[in-house]
């Protein structure tokens, strides 16, 4: 287990470095610069700005600064928001995105698993059809459509929830609903199909034969195995949702970090592009790593350390 963890950890570092390097290359190969605006600033001023952000240095030198910024975890000041460093932007935006993401994931997982399980237990029954119709709608309706609809109906027409901004738990309801519906539907479908498969297995029959209560069979024996595919997709899903979703954050005016991904690229705000990419890939790679570890706990048949030890 230990050597596996170490090995995976080193691979994580390598992956992040490769992503970081690719980002750097791509970033500098697209035309345009942070100071390219409709209103042209005077050339001397532009030169001053470039000198300030070290953009006048040759690319290899900039790359070295960049690597240094990754190692020291200090991405320097943003170009478009000169009074703030990238670290400050991330430190401010991430907790909010994380909070929204965590609540969303909880809602999505709990309701998705419940929905999927009930659908499987009542296979081809009314509940099943209802749940799966709901899931198909959930998957096919994009979150931003749902978001606009929710605001219009629940905030503007009926005035139950505030339409946007981020200040009280009431403000969380609409964005969480909009954001959780898609993942919930995916989880429900996955749970249902793997549950159906698991329920036909011999050991479930065995459990029934032993006379265990249906609840115990489902909760203790079936669900645990049925959740494997859910756990598999959770890694990417978590990384995506926790680091902020641009569209939902924009629609609900949530001050998370989602917008920095898109804005920084439009603005060619190099330090922010680098900061967000490295941050996102670190979280993504880390989540995948956690998922691999969780496999082992959920299914004792997957013995990571032995396999890796042999290799």
């Amino acid at each position, binding site marked *: 287990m230990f050597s596996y963890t170490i090995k995976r950890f080193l691979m994580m570092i390598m992956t992040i470095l490769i992503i970081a390097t690719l980002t750097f290359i791509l970033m500098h190969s*697209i*035309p*345009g*610069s942070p100071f*390219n*605006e*409709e*209103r*042209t*600033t*005077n*050339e*001397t*001023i532009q030169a*001053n*700005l470039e000198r*300030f952000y070290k953009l006048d240095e040759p690319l290899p030198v900039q790359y070295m600064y960049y690597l240094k910024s990754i190692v020291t975890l200090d991405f320097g000041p943003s170009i*478009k*928001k*000169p*009074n*703030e460093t990238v670290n400050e932007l991330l430190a*401010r*935006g991430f*907790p909010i995105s*994380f*909070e929204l993401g*965590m*609540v969303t994931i*909880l809602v999505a997982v709990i309701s998705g698993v419940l929905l999927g399980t009930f659908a499987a237990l009542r296979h081809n029954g009314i509940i099943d059809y209802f749940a799966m119709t709901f899931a198909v709608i959930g998957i096919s309706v994009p979150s931003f459509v749902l978001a*606009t609809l929710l*605001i*219009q109906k629940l*905030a*503007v027409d009926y*005035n139950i929830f*505030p*339409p*946007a*901004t*981020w*200040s*009280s*738990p009431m*403000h*969380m309801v609409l964005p969480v609903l909009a954001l959780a519906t898609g993942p919930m539907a995916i989880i429900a479908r996955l749970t249902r199909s793997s549950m159906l498969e698991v329920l036909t297995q011999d050991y479930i029959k065995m459990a029934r034969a032993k006379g265990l209560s249906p609840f115990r069979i489902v909760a203790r024996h079936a669900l645990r195995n049925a959740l494997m595919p859910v756990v598999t997709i959770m890694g990417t899903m978590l990384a995506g949702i926790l680091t902020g979703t641009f569209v939902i954050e*924009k*629609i*609900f*005016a949530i*001050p998370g970090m989602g*917008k920095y991904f898109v804005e920084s690229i*439009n*603005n*060619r705000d190099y330090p922010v592009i680098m900061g967000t990419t490295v941050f996102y890939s670190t979280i993504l790679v880390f989540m995948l790593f956690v998922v691999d570890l*969780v496999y*082992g*706990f*959920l299914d*004792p048949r997957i013995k990571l350390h032995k396999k890796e030890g042999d290799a």
Partner: protein
Amino acid sequence: MKKWLLLLLTAVFALVLTACTANNDAGEKPADKDGEDKETETAEEKVLYLNNGSEPTSFDPSVGFDAVSWNALNNLMEGLTRLGEDHQPVEATAEKIDVSEDGLTYTFHIREDAKWSNGDAVTAKDFVYGWTRMLDPNTASPAAFLGYFIEGAEAFNTGEGKIEDVAMKAVDEKTFEVKLTAPTDAFLNIITNPSFFPINEKVATENAEWFTEAESFVGNGPFQLTSWEHDAKMVFEKNPEYWDADTVKLDKVEWAMVNDTNTEYQMYQANELDVSDVPSELAAELMDSEEVSIQDQAGTYFYRFNTTMEPFTNEKIRKAFATAVNQQEIVEFVTKNGEKPAHGFVSYGFQGPDGKEFRDTVGNLVEFNAEEAKKLLEEGMKEEGYDTLPTVTLTYSTSDTHQNIAVALQAQFKEALGVDVELANVEGSVFASEQKELKYQLSRSSFLHDYADPVNAIESFITGSSMNRTGWSNAEFDKLIADAKAETDAAARWQLLMDAEKVLMDEMPIFPIHFYNQVALQKPNVSGIVRHPVGYLDLKWVDKTNE
């Protein structure tokens, strides 16, 4: 193994709990505040709810050169002059302004009762400090070019001169003096710009980052910054130290930062905002609403020909394309935002010494005329010896509005000239850099004024200007602009500028589409929001009555 699982679950649970508690804490404070607001509001407190779109880039007067910073900052600070309700500059922090006979030396006498929000007196030194900071090459202020009217400023800013040679000084505590390189009619207007705001020297030397948080921010405007949750919300309160505090009727301004027009509009409908933009999909529907306010904005939406690339090397072909454009149709059926069609480059909002609009005096310099267009195209093609016109590609930066206009132009060229123009769209930042490199034949553009004088717009097209981007160069035009800048007689200067615009539109390296405007939805109980054609949002005179 189970223990591990339990541990992991506990860890996740704990994380969620902390996230939730963090939320509860963070959530309760504003919720409480809202409660307070509602209570006190009934006690006649006047709170205006606005949306700033996004987090201000910077409240450092020298740095944040954009509307999201300056619409707000304009109400927190004040320069020597301020634009009045009629958009003309009036004395503000300065009580009296003396101009020397040659129009070069300005002496500003600062009000005795001009105070900073922390109670300090506003002094001439604060202006020297603020302006020096803007011009300092190390600040890299994007607004520094506005200061080039001051003697020695350009040299200092470009690193060739010294600060001692910049002709501005604090004569005494309350007297500030500057000397210009040439008489500049627009000078009192230019210094209403936020980059010319004073900076409290004492505050700034103690804390170089004074402008980044509400706690440390010190202003001298009608309002003071009392709370600033970055990326989320700002609260302004009436500044009791402001010299003209009696005029200010609002008690508070709360700014949301909603960067989605539809959401903004929905919040407006839900009475969470008093002012909103008009979502473009609803423009046609809402334009006739009584809550819509339309104001001029000095600036032009136009297209650039590349005069170094065939077929637009030929003047007649350029004119053919320009006269094939029906501006009226575009504003009426395409943009549908209440804009005025543009038949010249300089927009409305500039009155000459005779009191007449620049635009009206010059008149229409380009108008739709399909027959004339066809004729010009034939003549042009003959001159160049073309049997068929080289392929023309029209390039625009990716956006729905730009695309709609581009498609309309494509149809108009086809209809009037029988020419099939190809369309290409390019991502914004790439577009900006490639346009400067003259890589496009025909491309969209826009100009918004930095200060309220026609020369600001027209001089874009002098030879070698970074705003030129057409490859066009005309000695007569360059001379007219140079003469206008040196001219001391206001009427003569005005005439030179009008002549320059005529030369420009005669050779037509560009053609205009429409002038900009500022459209907003505004609750009927709100009055007095001033939107200048050039300048920033002013809330000094705003009043809000209870519905």
